[in-house]
């Protein structure tokens, strides 16, 4: 190693700062609440070999999948065909994307005529066309129904917007003004990355920088390998299910076998359900992203996340399954729901061997809801998308967190006051769900209840959720978490299928109840004071306490 460890640390910090600044700009100039309020977006820097060097940590599902986007962009436009001022957009899940609403923009960074790095960001747009407003339909059976499919294509060329491509995109979406604003914010974020990285090159020179970036990746790889080496060698396996695919196919197995061999891990999804008609197929990039995330969490969260972290992990996902589907599979929920189950099984497999390094299953879903229609206040079309947090798994030594996004998601909620100002909807209830957390020495986190009412118009509503029938598993003797549910409230309550689309009448309320998480450790071992505290705070009812704990009132 010829570059000293101090310069290395300085350059590594600078690369993280670049991704973070890109991210701050994207959020602050984005237009759709999904980006600006919920932060459903991610930014990262890649080196000239298109390998990840730094990221701003928003959305885990984006982060491990973005390298596939950069690779696909370069595959279509090899470096010699790119020019200063170009930027490539894509969302095609079968060519570097994850699902259609996620638009990824890749910008090459030139110094003296050569590409030295790429700035990239991904944002979940609130609509990208297709059969249902919001483009998170639960009833698609082919990707062609899910929205506009964009292969890698130059959205910017020589510094100018490629208007025909922009028009093509805007003509296919329900809320074009919002899309244009978000795309501009994405472009501005990459420009920030470009400016800052160029400054770094000016300071250190291409040669030193290239060497430093290589070493930064090697460093993460070394730490990752030494962590993996500390796990017992052997084969770990686990199996869980997805409730259904929305098209009538139920209890779809997701199966994993991990082989820990010295300082590397081989992950095999053989035995997982064949790809299905419903929109829950996760393309390989998504499966890989979920796997990388899980392995990273059981090692050391302090390891700088970059390409080096991925090197010790080798993944086999059989083609034609829900973890590696082929065209024309519908995939929107693969990114949102199947990704969570992939995480659950990989962590579950580790949990059998080293439970103290993992957590009981979290809520295992993102509870996606979409409303669309025409806002009666100004007769403009709208598409509103959000996801909901739920229980985070009980852990060795601690209860799980209540009402948070778990694993592959980490978005924020839409503030009620912002939601109602922007859309013709009203939130009528938003609270923690008593008794939804799995019992254990350390209780699983509670799920949420969020009720949303349609105001003065007819709205289409899509629900795409999981764990309404299966439950998030407990760990080390803990009980499983409570199911999720959804109801249509119109005088009385009608239970809604977890993947379904409806037209709502004015005044009708959709009540989304999100799953709790699994508990950790034997419930009989729970500290009586913790039980008393849960009772006092109303997180557990006395009936539940009697049934699940060594408790009598």
């Amino acid at each position, binding site marked *: 190693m010829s570059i000293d460890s101090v310069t290395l640390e300085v350059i590594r910090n600078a690369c993280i700062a670049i991704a973070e600044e890109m991210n701050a700009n994207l959020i602050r100039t984005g237009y759709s609440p999904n980006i600006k309020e919920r932060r459903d977006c991610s930014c990262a820097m890649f080196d000239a070999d298109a390998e990840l060097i730094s990221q701003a940590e928003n959305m885990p599902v984006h982060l491990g999948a973005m390298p596939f986007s950069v690779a696909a962009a370069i595959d279509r436009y090899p470096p010699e065909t790119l020019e200063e001022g170009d930027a490539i957009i894509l969302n095609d899940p079968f060519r570097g994307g994850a699902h259609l609403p996620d638009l990824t923009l890749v910008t090459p960074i030139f110094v003296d005529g050569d590409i030295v790095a790429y700035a990239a960001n991904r944002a979940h747009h609130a609509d990208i066309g297709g059969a249902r407003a919001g483009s998170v339909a639960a009833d698609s059976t082919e990707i062609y129904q899910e929205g506009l499919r964009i292969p890698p294509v130059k959205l910017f060329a020589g510094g100018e917007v490629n208007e025909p491509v922009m028009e093509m995109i805007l003509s296919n979406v329900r809320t074009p003004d919002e899309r244009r604003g978000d795309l501009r914010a994405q472009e501005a974020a990459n420009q920030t990355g470009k400016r800052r990285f160029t400054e770094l090159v000016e300071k250190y020179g291409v040669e030193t920088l290239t060497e430093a970036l290589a070493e930064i990746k090697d460093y993460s790889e070394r730490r990752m390998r030494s962590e993996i080496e500390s796990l017992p060698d052997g084969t770990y396996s686990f199996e869980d299910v997805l409730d259904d695919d929305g098209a009538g196919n139920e209890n779809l197995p997701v199966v994993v076998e991990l082989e820990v061999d010295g300082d590397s891990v081989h992950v095999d999804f053989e035995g997982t359900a064949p790809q299905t008609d419903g929109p829950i197929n996760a393309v390989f990039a998504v499966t890989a992203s979920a796997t990388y995330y899980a392995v990273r969490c059981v090692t050391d969260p302090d390891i700088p996340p970059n390409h080096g972290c991925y090197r010790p992990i080798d993944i086999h996902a059989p083609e034609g399954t829900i973890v590696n589907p082929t065209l024309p599979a519908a995939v929107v929920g693969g990114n949102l729901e199947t990704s969570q189950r992939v995480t659950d099984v990989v962590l579950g497999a580790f949990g059998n061997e080293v439970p103290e390094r993992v957590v009981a299953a979290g809520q295992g879903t993102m509870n996606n809801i979409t409303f669309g229609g025409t806002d009666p206040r100004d007769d403009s079309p709208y598409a509103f998308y959000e996801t909901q947090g739920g229980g985070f798994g009980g852990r060795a030594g601690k209860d799980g967190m209540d009402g948070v996004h778990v694993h592959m998601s980490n978005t924020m909620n839409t503030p009620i*006051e912002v939601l109602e100002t922007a859309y013709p909807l009203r939130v009528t209830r938003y*609270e923690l769900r008593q008794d939804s957390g799995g019992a254990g020495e350390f209780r699983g986190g509670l799920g949420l209840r969020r*009720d949303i009412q349609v105001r003065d118009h007819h709205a289409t509503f899509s629900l795409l959720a999981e764990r309404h029938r299966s439950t998030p598993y407990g760990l080390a003797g803990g009980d499983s978490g409570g199911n999720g549910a959804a109801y249509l409230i119109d005088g009385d309550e009608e239970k809604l299928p977890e993947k379904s689309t409806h037209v709502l009448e004015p005044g009708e309320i959709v009540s989304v109840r999100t799953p709790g998480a699994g508990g950790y450790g034997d419930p009989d071992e729970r500290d009586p004071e913790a039980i008393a505290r849960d009772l006092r705070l109303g997180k557990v009812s006395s009936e539940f306490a009697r049934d699940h704990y060594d408790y009598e009132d």
Partner: protein
Amino acid sequence: MSEERRVGVDIGGTFTDIVTIHDGTVNVSKTPSTPSNPDEGVINGLTKVSERDDFDPSEIGFLAHGTTVATNAVLEGEWADTALVTTEGFRDVLEIGRQARPDIYDFQVEKPTPVVERDRRYEVHERLDERGNVLTELDEDGVRDLAADLVEADVDSVAISLLYAFEDDSHEQRVRDILADEGLDATYSLSSGVLPEIREYERTLTTALNGSLKPVMDRYIGNLESKVEAEGVGAELKIMQSNGGIITADIARERPVNTLLSGPAGGVQGATYVSGLSGESNLITMDMGGTSCDVSLVEEGTPLVSTDTEVGDYPVSVPTIDIHTVGAGGGSIAWIDAGGALRVGPKSAGADPGPICYGRGGERPTITDANLLLGRIDPGAFLSGELDVELEDVRRTVEEEIADPLDMSVTEAAQGILDVANANMARALRVVSVERGYDPREFGLVAFGGAGPLHACKLAEELDIPKVIVPRTAGVLSALGLLISDILYDYSTSRVRPWADVSPADLHSQFDEFAAEGHERLDSEDLDADAMQFERTVDLRYAGQAFELSVSVPEGDLDAAAMETIAERFHERHRQRYGHAYPEEPIELVTIRLRARGVVETPDLRPAETGGSVEAAVSDTREVVYDGEPTETPIYDRDALPIGSSFEGPAVVSGVESTVVIHPGQRVSVDDFGSLHVEVNQ
């Protein structure tokens, strides 16, 4: 008013600093802080200066105080038992927060503890819509029943945060009135008063924090006031707020959440003032102490203000000087991580045991130890025959813990520790400058705090900052800041409307309403009308965005042309901050703000002429290492440097409060106020 004696008292972690101004003369004093009973430190300090300067405490005409009481209460979670009242269906908003977890890869991470626990959160039946229209009338009988529950629960403080209370506060007021009428003996915080702005979680959290801090602040100020009074001080006690303005102690009791960054804000104010005396008004301030480094940016003499500052785990949305903190202080510990990389901080040895060289039992190498090994600090300052520590101990520890594992010499290791620490601080300096759209090349770096001047000249070089300023009073700038800061009261209300639909007359009358309140307030503090200023701003964004930019509103009556000017200012701000603007896009109004300012007379800080010469100020020479190069360096005695003199680096300027390291090729001059100005090579 020049005969009035003005006193500022700032409580820091180690020392309580007192600055007095009388007849244009500034005097500085330090006494040890008394963390368990902070008011004692204040009284000790007052006694010390009154005895030293031979005056009677009754002669004090102005007494201002920077306090960490609220901050410490938040950091330690030791606040009053508070009840929270919310709109029916929403008592858990405070606990759910924004649903994101604080770290995505760390399974052991925790959400912040709710400020008010679930069994102390109550709901009332009522609801407004997004324009403040009543959808559901307030159930007053329900509120009366609630009063009985709250009496039973025996709470000291009640926070009330109802949806859209910033649009219409009548339900919140009514709830408070009924609870009070029903005999609930408590103090009240209304979200419409504390933070009348959109986004229910942030507003509710800020209101709940205010509620839980009120009894704490009330007790502290009550004690302090009676002790100060017992000393014979007649002046009303004033408190520094997080926004850099002074308020009365009574207002601080009502709004303790506005004082969370009271101390650091005083420092930024002091640094801004002293630098401004010599004509420097665009500044990056850097206050580096034992455990952390606070940085902020000052534009045209005004510190930038933010409304999303974090204190502990909590985002606090009241206007606060935009201070960014990194865990890099003199006591920050250097270590090698599992992958063999050199890291510095965030763990700190603090003041106790402190760095190894303090000789108080510290055993881990720190930034201060590295500075010592490189000759930047006088070894005699710490190491004495009486203590069982020798330079050799420091050297050996750095060798064992850092140099050997990295296969470096001890000097290289010490240099490495400083380089890594500087990289962390450089990142913080970038956050407040380039990330906010400001080019550091257009700013001066003001360094203060015990460790700031040791690092500033190197940092400036790395960030292409052309000049470093080290004020003469670098060790007591927070206390000095208390004496030169204006009295400030902020008024605001959210009104989310298309800018095109906002009538100039309505906007004007809202400003007038705020100005009348502000006038009354300042009047009650005996300010002359000509010392009052009213600054009007609006927070705007492109319709559809979520984050606003504050834009100043032209003076005088508002008409269509003024509205157009405001819009143009917004586009310009957006371009500056984000690199792009869309003049054709519609704009949206979000928040209307007025700041009432009572202008304070400021002192002349010119020190007495010392005479002498630069040559005579050299007290010693020592080998100091710069970028790995050992160089024989003159050591200057700061107090002996004549006004107006100048000299070249390498140099170390040694003073009572801090040590300044000037690198080879940098040029230093001493201005009329005794501040050092270091020109940094580009």
